């Protein structure tokens, strides 16, 4: 009690030895509300999902629920559509993240120069990221990719002929829309990375006669590495769970040609009412995500803890 009333007079060591347990609790207690909340709302459902996945349960047939063990998983393993959705998810995620990062780096390099109206151009460029995803998908489906009065057809029609983009290239069309939305995000991260770069090194290299491209490859890219990693990991977190674009633009079709895993599971759960099977798919996706996430998080962790120690 005395230590509490006059803490500043007591040396640090005394407090630590007084009651380490109490101190460590006062440190950890503020963490608990958030931790408990996140566990209850986001983790408990996953455990329940595992239980559901062991049952056969169709929502439209009351009383149909029964324990079936691993039968749902056997079904998932032999589901060709599930495999298509898996491949689509990988293609969509990798394609979107990689292409928007490449464009993002190029735009960031462009914006790193001084020119008239630079802040206006930056504002124009970040806008796609701010547009509500549902509205963006609607915009691309209706105004851009429409076969009769869409802008894409108007511009590319004379070159490649009349194309019904959303049914000829459904996955690529969705990807174009998502790249449009995610490029600004990548650009902002990389631009901030560029602007944090020490200018003297670059100038010295420039003085030394190194070509701009050589400077970019030898100095700029290594510096940008952790920003690029951060953008890739954060982008992938969101893109791998993408639902809105597919729901709005193609409904996963034609067939399952543009169905990704989130959309497929949604279809099975909310349109097919098959709880057991969609739960089993959810668990499979969950396991895969944990595997990939562990690797990805390690990646940004090394670059970030490294950064903090250096700072």
């Amino acid at each position: 009690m005395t230590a509490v009333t006059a803490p500043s007079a007591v040396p640090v060591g005394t407090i630590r030895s007084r009651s380490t347990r109490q101190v460590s609790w006062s440190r950890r207690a503020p963490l608990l509300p958030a931790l408990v909340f996140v566990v209850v709302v986001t983790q408990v459902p996953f455990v329940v999902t595992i239980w559901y996945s062991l049952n056969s349960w169709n929502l439209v047939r009351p009383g149909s629920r029964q324990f079936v063990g691993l039968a749902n998983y056997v079904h998932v393993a032999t589901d060709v559509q599930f495999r298509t959705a898996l491949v689509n998810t990988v293609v969509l995620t990798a394609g979107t993240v990689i292409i928007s990062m490449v464009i993002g780096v190029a735009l960031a390099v462009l914006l790193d120069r001084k020119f008239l109206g630079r802040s206006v151009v930056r504002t124009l460029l970040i806008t796609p990221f701010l547009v509500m995803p549902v509205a963006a998908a609607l915009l691309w489906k209706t105004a851009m990719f429409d076969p009769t009065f869409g802008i894409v057809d108007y511009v590319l029609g004379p070159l490649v002929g009349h194309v019904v983009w959303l049914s000829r290239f459904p996955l690529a069309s969705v990807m174009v829309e998502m790249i449009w939305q995610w490029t600004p995000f990548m650009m902002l991260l990389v631009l901030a990375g560029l602007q944090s770069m020490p200018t003297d090194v670059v100038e010295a290299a420039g003085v030394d006669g190194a070509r701009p491209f050589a400077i970019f490859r030898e100095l700029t890219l290594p510096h940008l590495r952790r920003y690029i990693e951060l953008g890739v990991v954060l982008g992938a977190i969101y893109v791998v769970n993408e639902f809105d674009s597919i729901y709005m633009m193609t409904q996963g079709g034609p067939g399952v040609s543009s169905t990704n895993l989130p959309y497929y599971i949604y279809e099975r759960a909310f349109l097919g009412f098959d709880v057991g099977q969609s739960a089993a798919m959810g668990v499979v996706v969950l396991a895969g995500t944990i595997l990939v996430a562990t690797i990805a998080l390690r990646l940004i962790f090394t670059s970030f803890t490294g950064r903090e120690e250096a700072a």
Partner: protein
Amino acid sequence: MMAATDTLAAPPRAATRPTPAIRRRRRPGIGNVVWGVVAWLVGILFFFPVLWMVLSSFKTEAAAYTNVPQFVFSPTLAEYRHVFSSGVGSYFLNSAIATVVSVVAVLLLGTPAAFALSLRPIKKTSDALFFFLSTKMLPIVAAIIPLFVAAEAVHMLDNVWTLVILYTAMNLPIAVWMMRSFLLEVPSELLEAAEMDGARLWRSLREVILPVVSPGLAATALICAIFAWNEFFFAVNITAARAATVPVFLVGFISSQGLYWAQLAAAATIATLPVVLAGWVAQRQLVRGLSFGAIK
């Protein structure tokens, strides 16, 4: 140019000739003008779809449906009138409640957590952080069925407070990450002073640390608000007529109105406007928040 070939092979720090000013001065000029024009063109290209949406929203349906895009037309507010008369107000209210309340809840829960995680000697800090971010990576679609069943069991389907709870949980992990990185910028003496005096921890948190980190809090709040306002998956699956938010309104507008692009464009513009304006105004906070505070 002649020097370029032989110096390229040498490491950059071997540069010893101190003639920086002369070469630097020559750069800005015609080259920068060219790149500036390129940047403007690309910026307009990226912005064009949004511009087109806004333009279309001021057109009549007939003018919006043309094979050749029309840039000159006589603007009309008819489509906006139509959207407002279709009862968009209650959807806006739901979105506002879900966004504002969830952001406040995120800050209230997340700030102490981030504070605890930014104190250096705590063990398992990276484990806790790892856990928080990993929850963000899990496919939300795998959790929606139990959430739906649970909400139904407690009669909270189609209830805006269910959205508040879900949005809080959805944003909390990234918020904790962001705010921890902002707290790490606070001088460690400040944090240690707060930490030593356990009984007055809350007071020092409020009076000493919060003023220092408030820009970071603003960035965090902005990002969480954007994600909450734009969220569609939860909203479409657990709400119906009463608690539906703006994105759900937009989607419902399509099916009920068919393909009336001018009208849809007006609805989409209204739905998008709050976040776009907020993002434009707070660009710096946006960058700080999006990079989890890694970028100052």
